[in-house]
């Protein structure tokens, strides 16, 4: 989600923020919050066309019925030399660019800030942090047309980057400027870097990193600009260019097209030709559960900024999110108003049921509660120092790539969380008798994910001894009508001679025993602990 902060005064020049209008804006799917003189608006990632105040107002005005239908923008034909040549050297680097020229702009410092803000928001969202798309805006008076877009080896690229005082080569720019450092990874492993050049060979910028101080800095005296949008997805680039060009036209600019030369292919941008799509009234009614008529669509669709006639729809050239008819159907629903839908549960007979595992787990829990045990619920992640204390072997450790907390591994058992619980509860009243049912993780090449997940049951008593924990398990297994055996075994952290493996259906399914005082000391636990942990797999099989 991107957030727009707009002055209330600026919006109210166009739309009065009455309670009724605010409610309507909310029902467009635009969360809006109004403080004294500021308006905060959240924009969902599917609508980058709303990231400018102009785009947002365009949408709200059509929704409120003030200016319904597809808004027209005039694009003038290219003048002489309004051309850009795309060299094939950029093909495997940053293959596409689309461009436009806007004239008659009246910039002041506020406006410049606003435009940079739109640019940055588009970079951060649909531009995927400049990877997919980056926009450059240049003062036309400093440039000689036509333009070239090509790739050169880094040591052949030299210019004064924006806000710097001296000329640097490409590598220096990546190392020494803040934006260079932030986005250098986008040029990793590339032999050549992309640049824009003017007719005199002056470097305008090195996308997607930085403009030149000399030819790429907008000032309040700038009237005419050259805009380019470079990246990897031609379809998206065209839309992004349209988003920014339409905003500049709404700000009073006059737009001119440019001719792009991709080898022999010549294309003109910006291209505001609306895309046409068929829309079936029947499909819409079926999916929404409504009974709309043709004339309803004629009213609803223009309120979402479309033109509509006879089952055909014209889609604004700045919409990036229309992949399928369902996207239009959603807009019909929004125009109809989500609050106008009458919720209805259909009369379809299906039989509800909990999973077998849930049922058995509930019964186990019920039985243990009868013994006065309290159920705990702990994180599926454990800390590195806990893995160390538990002396986990390498193949027992399943680590996370990154984690913002000290929890960096998934749990290999419920024993570790239970010892954490006792350590954290040493000031609470004893006896503490707990149980937990939860998933544990082990490496296993045979599974789809390389990890095997098993439901485990842990029971722990503190203070407690072997007899008490065995009594508890014995009670549980009698209630479940399951036979078990216990055989002597050894296990890290438990007392030798008082540790057994639990065998159900001739299969080792867990362990039972008393925790060694040294382990308790290491975990900072003050009273004795007896516990058991079993896999519930064998028990599930019994039912």
């Amino acid at each position, binding site marked *: 989600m991107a957030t727009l902060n707009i002055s209330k005064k600026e919006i109210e020049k166009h739309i009065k923020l009455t309670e009724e209008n605010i409610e309507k804006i909310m029902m467009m799917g635009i969360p809006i919050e109004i403080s004294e003189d500021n308006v905060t608006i959240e924009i*969902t990632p599917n609508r980058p066309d709303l990231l400018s105040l102009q785009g947002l107002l365009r949408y709200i005005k059509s929704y409120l019925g003030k200016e319904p239908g597809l808004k027209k923008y005039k694009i003038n034909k290219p003048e002489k030399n309004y051309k850009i040549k795309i060299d094939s050297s950029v093909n495997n680097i940053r293959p596409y660019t689309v461009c436009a020229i806007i004239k008659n702009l009246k910039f002041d410092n506020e406006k410049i800030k606003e435009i940079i803000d739109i640019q940055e928001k588009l970079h951060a969202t649909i531009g995927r942090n400049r990877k997919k798309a980056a926009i450059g805006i240049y003062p036309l008076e400093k440039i000689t047309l036509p333009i070239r877009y090509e790739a050169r080896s880094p040591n052949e690229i030299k210019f004064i980057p924006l806000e710097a005082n001296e000329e640097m080569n490409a590598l220096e720019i990546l190392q020494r400027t803040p934006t260079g450092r932030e986005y250098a990874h986008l040029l990793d492993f590339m032999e050549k870097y992309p640049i824009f050049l003017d007719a005199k060979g002056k470097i305008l910028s090195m996308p997607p990193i930085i403009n030149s101080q000399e030819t790429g800095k907008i000032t309040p005296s700038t009237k005419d600009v050259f805009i380019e949008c470079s990246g990897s997805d031609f379809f998206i680039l065209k839309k992004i260019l349209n988003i920014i060009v339409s905003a500049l036209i709404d700000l009073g600019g006059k737009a001119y097209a440019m001719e792009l030369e991709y080898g022999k292919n010549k294309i003109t941008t910006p291209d505001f030709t609306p895309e046409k799509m068929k829309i079936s009234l029947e499909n819409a009614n079926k*999916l929404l559960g409504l009974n709309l008529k043709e004339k309803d669509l004629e009213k609803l669709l223009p309120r979402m900024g479309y033109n509509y006639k006879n089952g055909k729809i014209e889609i604004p050239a700045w919409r990036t999110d229309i992949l399928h*008819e369902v996207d239009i159907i959603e807009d019909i629903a929004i125009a109809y108003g989500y609050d106008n839908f009458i919720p209805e549960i*259909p009369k379809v007979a299906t039989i509800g049921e909990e999973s077998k595992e849930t049922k058995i787990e509930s019964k186990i829990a019920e039985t243990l509660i009868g013994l006065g045990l309290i159920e*705990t619920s702990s994180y599926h992640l454990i800390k590195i120092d806990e893995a160390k204390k538990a002396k986990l072997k390498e193949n027992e450790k399943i680590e996370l790539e990154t984690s913002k907390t000290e929890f960096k591994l998934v749990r290999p058992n419920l024993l570790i969380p239970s010892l954490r619980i006792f350590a954290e509860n040493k000031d609470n009243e004893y006896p503490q008798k707990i149980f937990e049912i939860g998933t544990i993780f082990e490496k296993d090449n045979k599974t*789809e994910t390389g990890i095997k*997940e098993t439901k485990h049951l842990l029971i722990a008593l503190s203070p407690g001894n072997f007899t008490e924990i065995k009594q508890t398990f014995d009670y549980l297994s009698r209630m479940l009508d399951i036979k078990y055996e216990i055989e002597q075994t050894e296990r890290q952290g438990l007392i030798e001679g008082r540790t057994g493996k639990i065998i159900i259906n001739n299969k080792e399914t867990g362990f039972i025993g008393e925790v060694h005082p040294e382990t308790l000391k290491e975990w900072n636990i003050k009273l004795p602990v007896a516990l058991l942990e079993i896999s519930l797999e064998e028990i599930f099989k019994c039912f």
Partner: protein
Amino acid sequence: MEKETEIQRIIETLSPLETKIIPFLKEDIEKIKEKSGLDEVSLLRALKFLENKGIIKIKTAKKTIIDLGTNGIYYKKNYLPERKLLLTLEEKNHISLDEAKKLSKLSDNEFKVSIGVLKDKALIELTNNKLTLKATKEEIIKKMPEESLLEILPIEKEKLKDEMLLAFENLKKRKDIIETKEKNIFDFELTDLGKEIAGKEIKLDLLEEVTPEMIKEGVKGKKFRKYDLSYPVPQINGGKRHFVNQSIEYAKKIWTDLGFKEMSGPLIDSSFWIFDALFTPQDHPAREMQDTFFIKNILAKLPEKKLVNAVKQSHEKGIEKSKGWNYEWKEKEAQKVVLRTHTTGLSARTLSKLKEENLPAKYFAIGKVFRNETVDWSHGFEFYQTEGIVIDKNATFRNLLGYLKEFYEKMGYKKIKFVPSFFPYTEPSVEIQIFHPDKKIWLELGGAGIFRPELTTPLLGKPIPVLAWGQGFDRIITEFYKIKDLREMYANDIKELRNKKIWIK
């Protein structure tokens, strides 16, 4: 006369404990304890009973009790280090520091302290790295005040005087020899009523607890002692399910009542099921490491080729009249293994196994999901989500709203609002908001929608409408239990777990 009956009434309610101490009530607590033969706890209970009846007024005062620390226990059994050093010097009156240390077998710290202590008491002298004994025989034999103090512990600090108080101050500075604890000391005074009763020998022929003999032989003509029914009883605690699981159990019941079958699946899954099968493009921000827990060094196996190819096509060029996302879909990206960020991957798995003849079908799940988040009062890396899908050729958006409304009404939220929203895998998409009656604000619960055809076509073979939702569940739990700090949810504070009320909606 009235006073007499009042006293008589009270006497009939006296418990055996109380009658035991009433004869001695005019004396001080220590005496009462001695003469009644009651232990401290019983005595205190008896006094509390009496206070409840208006016979006495209990006064409490905090007192400092001095007791032995871990080192103190050891030194009491053996010797204080300064004594050890003194004994060493008694044998060899004039020796070097090194030798003294070796012979006395003291640690560095003990040795240093001992020299200081003995020097202060003028029992030894230190010159040119040599220790000389200055103490007389009598002085050596005599107990030091510190030693005397260790012997009489535990003791109230107020009772210490002069030398002993000084010894206390000295030992306090040293490590773990003594420790002090605050203790509540009780005293009481008699009320006017109490003055009438105190000192009386009470001989009552009242029945106490019901015994088997009473049942066998009957109690005709005898009276039971009246209990003070308002007196608080000691708390007991029972076993119970974790409050989160109680609420989940309740929610599961709602879904099964509505005809939904429970689905289950892995918490750790491949990106294929969590993202790709859900038409989430491979450069989507949710797939970045800063938001999602990826598992190190493991790549998953992808499902059957047919499904993988259909998903690939759906992403790259579109499927079923869709334009797709228009990029090169990579298998390797789909093989990355993650802790599931939502339960919707489970829905995708369920759809892939469904057969058309089993439609319509309805499934639900309530399960843990994970986000790479910091942990503070408003953030956590694990939480529950409630997931549901309805697969039905005739399913509509209105039905989706119907199921959600029904569920949240049953969860106790009467005012529900549906607002447009966006998710990569549903269209139309909707967000559910519930009205918080106390705070008078709308709370966002999470998303729902109808699965996009780009998603359902590869999984089901054709674009059948699937109503789907996956909302955070923890918010409902924190609202019910008035939990302000999310860390409380899985902190497992046993005291909290014991005291948490039962989930009833």
